[in-house]
């Protein structure tokens, strides 16, 4: 503490130490404290069309599933003072022939604020039309849609969870040869 430069260095180093401690407390307080997201999600498949389509930048012709869904969710309890944003996505999962468990994301959204966390979607078209790894989607059974959330805090660890499960449905067989672009 004998010169100004030394004092600057000392103050700044203690400042970084205290900042780190405060950040650790913040992260701990928001992870350990009872954050019980009572999100009521009701995902219902509405309509499914399947058609052969050209991938917009590849020449391979595959089968795609076009899914529409209804979504009713209230993810407000996930937001605390440490939450930067909540990323939520719907994924369809089903058993397959080549692998026993397949999962593909059909829709996602970023919720930057608690006011955006009440979702009421009706007959919403899926953002991403999914195709199977074997290229064939015909008559896949036992497909369920579930809503996942991912809380991204300002300081601390990322947390995931899933809520809401639709009942299993079966894809109808292949529809006509529509030359539809896959990015609908």
């Amino acid at each position: 503490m004998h010169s100004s430069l030394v004092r600057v260095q000392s103050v700044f180093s203690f400042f970084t130490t205290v900042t780190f401690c405060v950040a650790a407390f913040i992260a701990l307080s928001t992870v350990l404290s009872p954050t019980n997201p009572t999100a009521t999600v009701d995902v219902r498949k509405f309509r499914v069309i399947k058609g052969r389509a050209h991938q917009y930048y590849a020449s391979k012709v595959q089968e795609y599933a076009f899914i529409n869904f209804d979504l009713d969710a209230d993810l407000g309890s996930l937001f605390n003072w440490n939450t930067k944003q909540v990323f939520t996505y719907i994924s369809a999962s089903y058993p397959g022939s080549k692998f026993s468990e397949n999962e593909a994301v059909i829709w996602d959204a970023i919720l930057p604020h608690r006011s955006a966390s009440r979702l009421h979607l009706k007959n919403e078209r899926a953002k991403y039309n999914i195709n199977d790894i074997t290229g064939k989607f015909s008559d896949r059974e036992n497909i369920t849609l579930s809503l996942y959330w991912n809380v991204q805090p300002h300081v601390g660890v990322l947390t995931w969870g899933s809520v809401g499960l639709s009942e299993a449905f079966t894809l109808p067989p292949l529809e006509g040869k529509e030359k539809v672009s896959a990015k609908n």
Partner: protein
Amino acid sequence: DFEGQNLAESLTTTIIAFTGILAFIAGWVLSDLKYTVYVGLSGTTLAFLAVVPPWPMYNRNPLVW
């Protein structure tokens, strides 16, 4: 001068530690991280201003050569 150094060090420690606690409480109560950052940074600026410039209070017991 050594007394002054002690004073400077204890001053910076208490100011910044207190600022950290206050910043956490402010953010917790007001439920917004913005206040934590504001309170923390302003308290740290106060600590810098109190300690870094050579105020005469740090030179009350100068060394006698």
